[in-house]
């Protein structure tokens, strides 16, 4: 069976097309202003990559924050369930999956059979998500990628007092004023976000193996700060951290079809 999983995030749209369990096509695109159009385009792109016809797809499942805006889905699945299913597929020894996207972070506990048993999401404050890192990088005037890497070369521990994403920016500005080096600032920012995320994640009882996915999995500064925070050596990061929800959705589309 050929299925497609579409993850409509606040920042990015990701599509995966599966033939059985094999990925035959994928695509990613920013959500932009016209989300509906963007979804169609991303899907079309994935179809093209898969070298199939749109009509070859048997079932489509949508997930992500904008999942309800996509009208042609056979299944609509929350990102919690999709994320849990996806990360379990990537590595079936994972028990806790932590997804940090642009505006939301969540922790998902997965059972030995791949069922989601518990989950937690961040509060209504932006200080624990990807956009926080972005605005901090903007405050320093360097790009996100470089900013993220800088943290690795610092061993300073500067507590960031402001938890608000917006005020933290001014705190960064005053750190700059005190001639704090960029790498130490980066470290401070990543420590603070790691602390936020782990605080949220602890609500689901962090059981190993722990996995990180979503956009922030690409951020080595965060990953390292997060490991240190939880005092763990190893953390699993899937090969394509942005596509985990889409993968889960595509798999669930097949499994649900069989059930029906």
């Amino acid at each position, binding site marked *: 069976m050929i299925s497609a999983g579409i993850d409509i995030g606040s920042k990015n749209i990701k599509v995966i097309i599966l033939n059985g369990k094999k990925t035959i096509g994928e695509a990613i695109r920013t959500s932009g202003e016209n989300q509906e159009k963007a979804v169609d385009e991303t899907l079309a792109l994935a179809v093209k990559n898969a070298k199939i016809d749109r009509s070859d797809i048997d079932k489509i499942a949508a997930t992500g924050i904008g999942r309800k805006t996509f009208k042609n889905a056979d299944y609509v699945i929350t990102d919690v369930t999709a994320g849990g299913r996806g990360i379990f597929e990537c590595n079936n020894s994972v028990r806790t999956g932590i997804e940090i996207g642009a505006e939301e972070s969540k922790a998902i506990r997965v059972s030995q059979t791949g069922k989601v048993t518990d989950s937690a999401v961040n*509060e209504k404050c932006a200080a624990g998500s990807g956009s926080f890192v972005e605005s901090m990088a903007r405050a320093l005037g360097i790009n996100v990628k470089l900013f993220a890497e800088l943290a690795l070369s610092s061993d300073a521990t500067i*507590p*960031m*007092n*402001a*938890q608000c994403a917006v005020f933290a920016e001014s705190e960064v500005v*005053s750190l700059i004023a005190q001639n704090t080096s960029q790498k130490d600032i980066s470290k401070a920012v990543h420590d*603070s976000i790691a*602390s*936020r995320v*782990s*605080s*949220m994640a*602890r*609500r689901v*009882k962090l059981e190993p193996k722990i996995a990180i996915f979503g956009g922030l999995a690409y951020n080595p500064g965060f990953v390292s700060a997060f490991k240190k*925070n939880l005092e763990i050596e190893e953390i699993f990061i899937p090969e394509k951290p942005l596509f985990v929800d889409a993968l889960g959705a595509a798999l669930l589309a097949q499994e649900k079809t069989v059930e029906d």
Partner: protein
Amino acid sequence: MGDGYLHGIKEDIAGDGLFDQFFEWYDDRNSYAKKWKERTGGKVVGSLCTYTPEEVLTAANCLTVRLLGFHEPQDVTEPYLFAMFCPFSRDTLAQGLKGKLDHLDGVVMAHSCLHLRQTYNVMKHKLPVEFAWYLPIPNNVKDKYAKEFMASEIERFKESVEEWREFKIDENRLEDAITLMDKNRHLLRTVYEYRKDDNPHLTGMEALAMVTASELVDKHDANREIEKILKYLPSRKIKTDSKVGSRLIVIGSEDDDMSFAHMVEHEDATVVIDEHCTGTRWFWKEIGPEHDNLSQERRIGDRYCSRPACPTKDYAMDDGTRLRFLHILKLCGDYNVDGALLIQQKFCDPHEGDMVPLKEFLSEHDIPSLQLEFDVTLPLGQFKTRVEAFLETIGEEDLF
């Protein structure tokens, strides 16, 4: 090597070193407790709230330590206390969850507020303690039946401590403990008397360190140290007289934040008196000698019911008066106060529940006040602006 509760602030405040021992105890509280255990073979009991009748624990050869926070962001309490609980109760719990309180043998909750009660509930189940006791304390300590009830609860508490410690607390031991605690209260009060002077002889931060340390260490040690400093105090001066600046009272919920005290007094202002629980609320009023054939439990209970009450325990009398407010007013007069800093832990319902009438009351009595909301860590920059601006409103005629 210390436990770090001072966050290195001490270097900043170096003076003549008279209060160093208290700062050290404050900083090294956990190491102190561990050493105390080795030295005496006694048990260490964590106390949540100032209403714990320490006399009973002291008589049972236990060191009572007040459980306080660390003033640093933490991320371990989220699974137990969700966001609307006061930062103090969360910060304190974090100490336990992070393993810094593993030396505790027991933990006691003298009922005050729900927030702290929740901290206690988690500690009871998550810390390796042998003994945990919830001690009901009357909600309205001025109620006709409060003292009787308090005495019966102290008795029950005593019995459970006896059972735990496997020995009877005889009358002599308990009387000794009463005397020891009273001496500490008396000494602290004596030091506080000096703060009435134009030059208050000690800073608010020093007073805070002294009182808080007394809540953390063996009272014999504390008393000895206070007696020592009392020799030097009469001739001691802080700052230059003009730098004493505005005389402030700090009123509010739990507050042992040294960096705040430091920031305030860094400006042209000095804290000369306080009404909070790492201050006067804890030590004001002694038990006193035996009288009227009252039982020891009753005498102890009476003291806890008639000391200056926390907002959780203080309610309008039949004629509407608030004894807590009158007490504050008296302190303002006695200590010649220019303004009041009302500090309050964010989400602290009991204090929030007093804030509006208290502010009105103070302004009726021409005492300017500034309200500040504390979180685990303080936005010192913002607070600094507010405090400075407040000081400008009560002083700084120079600018006009």
